């Protein structure tokens, strides 16, 4: 939101404070200001008067002027229609820089021109280029234009909108002036406004509220408005704030909104009947004054004139009732609408206007009347011949009332960790419009209505007001009084960290992250995904990892990747581990390294042939599959299905024996996979058994090597013979026969 320093200065004296200070103090107390820009300093013109004015022969538009700048006369050729003798103009003599170009002497239709009379656009104060700027007849000839029109020089701040979404009172200059007055400890000037009670004998403007989405509606009829152009200062201010001039009434309406934060609307009174505020049947067409067509829905709130839709409440006026160049009588609307309704409507039709942006912040219903009073005050100044033709006519379904809050002083100090000078606290709150009453133990506060719509409702809100105006820099870091307790971390964390470490450091895998959604159909979809067709919430991570595998294959060999992430299966979210490696011989070893598991061959369906279920404590927790043709082996494990304690094994470092170890090799003939042999001997137990491993495999012959030893002694040959025979017997009992 753009904010003009000139307008702020009407309400608070900010002399001696630099824009940088304003930005820094406001950012530390209230909200961010993104930056500022100084306007008008380079305005190149001086005040001059047109002494003679003649048509240039052979030209329909051009006039030849003599322009006097207080010292000498200049011959100037000008195309503006509003040139006339005696007019004071903004004159840029030759050599001045206008719109980035240095003026030289030019010949137009054969006549030399030594300078320019500037239009609003050329002066940089409006978009107007239909004629030259007409200065007041009191302007002093020869004066620099910035002295004659001091409002040309302004500092425009860019306030961060997001930071003040919860502060409806800061969406106008007057509210910001109040905030700055508090911050810089300077008085806020009262707002000049008219007394509307003197019109109470005048007829009413009939108004009917038909929907509780309209909180407050008031109207004033004003007649005989003859002024067509708004004052140059107002046009300039609006232009600097991003709004183009549209004629006096529209400019005034816009200016009031920027000044007070209260959107309002001026209807052409000649087109208005009995006003009602309510809903319209669905499917009707409504033409806005921005020339866009809106199709009505039952939720939208409309201003109606004898059942004709004349305004989309709080968002935009209607084409059919807008102010025209010949409008002399107007009905001004000052209203408050339901913020949610306005926000929904504006977002539904994709038209967020300056008005809707303010209404959706929850405006104070009392602001409407204030705005009406201000409107009449300004109208009287700008167009003394205008006539107020109605009383201030209002009706309401809701009213913003002040809120009373009491806070304990000790509580506030404990909450902040600061000892306050309470006189300063009271002074600051008073400056913000609160009515604080201090007692020995407590602080009682009545909020102003402009802070009572949603922003302030409880003690914590008041503490914020106290603390931020007192200064957050008064808070010093203090450690808590409560001692640090040793905490026990949730069980899965250590296990997951260990898995990641083993996979990356022992097995050389790369950790990847993939998206939660997938092309593979599942039970759950993202309904508003931008990526059509890839909007299923994944129930497996394999497709994503395979896709990374394939994507990198052209530029990498030996791609080894894993992800620990979340999937949703049968509506239940769970943690999965997915591994993808090129060499299938690695896979079962990797899986066994991270989880104490067995493989149940041929059950997982990961591959029609080459697959196995991963079994932990008799429970299936995942599967593996091997795709020989593409050199890819995958495993997916449901981590949440495994007892987290198993993921962090205790016995990682068994004591080695001091005595001699012996190895015994057995070659089994087996028409199956090694995993089956392993499953058998995993169950073999003998006091001298120190473990076994696959030593060699040829065709269907598997050589398994057992290590046998004792912790108590060097094994005798009869000990070795005993275990040797028992291994053979155990194999035989489980259908494993030695190669003959």
């Amino acid at each position, binding site marked *: 939101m753009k904010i003009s320093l000139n307008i702020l200065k009407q309400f608070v004296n900010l002399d001696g404070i630099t824009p940088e200070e304003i930005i820094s103090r406001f950012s*530390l*107390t*209230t*909200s961010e200001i993104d930056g500022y820009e100084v306007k008008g300093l380079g305005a190149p013109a001086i005040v001059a008067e047109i002494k003679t004015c003649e048509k240039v022969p052979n030209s329909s538009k051009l006039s030849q002027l003599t322009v006097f700048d207080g010292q000498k006369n200049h011959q100037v050729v000008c195309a503006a229609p509003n040139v006339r003798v005696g007019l004071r103009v903004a004159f840029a003599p030759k050599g001045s820089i206008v719109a980035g170009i240095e003026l030289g002497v030019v010949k137009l239709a054969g006549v030399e021109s030594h300078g320019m009379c500037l239009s609003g656009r050329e002066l940089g104060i409006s978009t107007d280029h239909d004629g030259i700027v007409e200065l007041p007849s009191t302007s002093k000839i020869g004066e620099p234009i910035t002295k004659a029109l001091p409002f040309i020089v302004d500092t425009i701040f860019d306030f961060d909108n*997001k*930071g003040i979404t*919860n502060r409806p009172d800061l969406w106008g200059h007057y509210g910001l002036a109040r905030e700055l007055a508090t911050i810089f400890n300077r008085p806020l000037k009262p707002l000049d406004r008219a007394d509307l009670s003197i019109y109470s004998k005048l007829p009413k403007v009939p108004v009917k509220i038909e929907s509780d989405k309209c909180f407050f509606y008031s109207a004033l009829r004003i007649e005989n408005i003859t002024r067509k152009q708004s004052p140059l200062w107002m046009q300039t201010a609006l232009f600097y704030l991003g709004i183009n001039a549209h004629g006096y009434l529209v400019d005034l309406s816009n200016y009031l909104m920027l000044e007070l934060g209260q959107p309002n609307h001026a209807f052409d009174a000649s087109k208005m009947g009995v006003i009602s505020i309510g809903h319209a049947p669905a499917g009707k067409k409504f033409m806005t004054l921005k020339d866009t067509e809106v199709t009505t829905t039952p939720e939208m709130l409309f201003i109606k004139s004898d059942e004709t839709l004349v305004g989309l409440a709080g968002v935009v006026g209607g084409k059919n009732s807008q102010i025209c160049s010949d409008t002399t009588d107007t009905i001004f609307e000052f209203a408050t609408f339901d913020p949610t309704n306005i*926000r929904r409507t504006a*977002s539904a039709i994709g038209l967020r206007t300056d008005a809707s942006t303010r209404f959706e912040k929850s405006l104070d219903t009392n602001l409407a009347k204030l705005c009406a009073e201000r409107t009449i005050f300004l109208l009287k100044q700008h167009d003394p011949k205008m006539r107020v033709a109605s009383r201030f006519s209002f009706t309401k379904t809701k009213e913003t009332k002040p809120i009373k809050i009491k806070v304990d002083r000790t509580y506030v100090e404990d*909450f*902040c*960790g*600061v000892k306050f000078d309470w006189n300063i606290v009271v002074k600051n709150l008073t400056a913000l419009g609160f009515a604080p009453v201090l007692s020995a133990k407590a602080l009682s506060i009545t909020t102003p209505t402009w802070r009572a719509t949603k922003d302030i409702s*409880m003690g*914590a809100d008041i503490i914020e007001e106290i*603390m931020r105006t007192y200064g*957050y*820099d008064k*808070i*010093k870091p*203090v*450690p*808590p009084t*409560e001692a*640090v*307790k040793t*905490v*026990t971390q*949730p069980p*899965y*964390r250590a296990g997951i*960290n260990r898995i*990641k470490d083993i996979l*990356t450091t022992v097995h*050389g*895998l*790369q*950790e*990847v*992250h*993939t*998206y*939660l959604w997938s092309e593979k159909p599942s039970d*759950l*979809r*993202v*309904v*508003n*995904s*931008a990526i059509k067709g890839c909007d299923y*919430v994944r129930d497996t991570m394999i497709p994503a990892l395979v896709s*990374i595998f394939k*994507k*990198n294959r052209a*530029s*990498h060999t*030996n791609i*080894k990747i894993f992800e620990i992430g*979340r999937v949703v299966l049968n509506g239940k*979210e769970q943690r999965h581990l997915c591994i993808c490696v090129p060499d299938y011989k690695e896979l079962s070893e990797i899986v066994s390294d991270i989880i104490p598991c067995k493989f149940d061959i041929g059950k997982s369906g990961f591959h029609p042939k080459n697959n196995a279920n991963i079994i932990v404590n008799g429970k299936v927790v995942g599967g593996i599959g091997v795709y020989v043709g593409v050199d890819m082996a995958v495993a997916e494990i449901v981590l949440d299905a495994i007892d987290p304690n198993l993921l962090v094994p205790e016995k990682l470092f068994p004591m080695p024996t001091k005595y001699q170890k012996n190895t015994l090799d057995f070659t089994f003939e087996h028409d199956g996979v090694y995993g089956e042999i392993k499953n058998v001997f995993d169950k073999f137990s003998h006091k001298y058994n120190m473990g076994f491993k696959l030593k060699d495999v040829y065709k269907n012959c598997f050589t398994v090597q057992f290590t046998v030893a004792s912790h108590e002694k060097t094994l005798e040959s009869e000990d070795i013979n005993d275990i040797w025979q028992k291994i053979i017997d155990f194999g035989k009992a489980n259908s494993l026969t030695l190669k003959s």
Partner: protein
Amino acid sequence: MDISNLKKAIDQEIAGVKTEDDVFAFHQKFLSKSGEITKLMAGIKDIAPEKRGEFGKTCNAIKQDTETRLFKIQDEIKAVALREKLMSDPLVDITIPRLNTKRGTLHPITIVTRDVEEVLERMGFIVEEGNEIATEFENFESINIPKHHPARDMQDTFWLSDGRVLRTHTSMWQNYMMKKYGPSFRAICPGRCFRNEATDATHENTFFQVEGMMVGKDISIANLLYFMKEITTALLKRDDIEVRLRPSYFPFTEPSFEMDATCVFCDGKGCPICKHSGWIELFPCGMIHPRVLEMGGINPKEYRGFAFGFGLTRLAMLRWGIKDIRMFNSGNLDFLAGVTK
């Protein structure tokens, strides 16, 4: 031989010792039991008794000196022999890498998350992990974002076909943590969050945040500032960092702040990265809103707390100067291999 002749003979012959065999021969001739020095020493009986002491000393000195010289020569001979042996090894390229090595790498997000966890664990925080899918209540209502709240518009939420949402922030986990650990606890919850927005170099629909909170009897804004400063100091690994609070607005905290820290790129002097302010915005934080405490089953009249959060993805980008946020989920193995701790 007398002493002077012996010395001459030793000097003469030791100069000719060039091999292990020479060493052996020399030792035999002079130092062994039947060697010349022993023989000389045996002649002590013919010496006048008052001169025997001096004679013995001289003999021993000769013996020791000769031994030392011989051993030194022997060491040199061995060193030369070893070098000759090693020189017969084949010449190899000692700079050559193993071909086709695969280095394991942790994802950059894992690395920064562990850093953050480690810092906060030291301060007594529990590390909790939350679901990525949340009910509307969990994601919004439970942290004081009622239906119709404008904050719901600001966050472009991914909605699911079963009516749930992909969590838009880890802040939603405040409610869970309070119910599980409340009322007195410290906890953080790192995790993945989702926003329905178009992606480009600085925007991702999938990113990581961490939420932290502390609830207790007498928690104050001064305590919040203390923790924020400690965390910042530990994360940035610098002890000269200043911090400050600025007002901000979040529905789930009151008051709400942005915490700024001294810009580490210019030490607070002002640079383009901090927009010449000398400060960089690090953590949004605030005192937990009484309604949020209430919904977490904690009595706001008895307990208070603070909450803070920040983007882990942003932290990783800052730390390694990663320019394109889309790299994190790209599965680009060159990128992922580039970040090693």
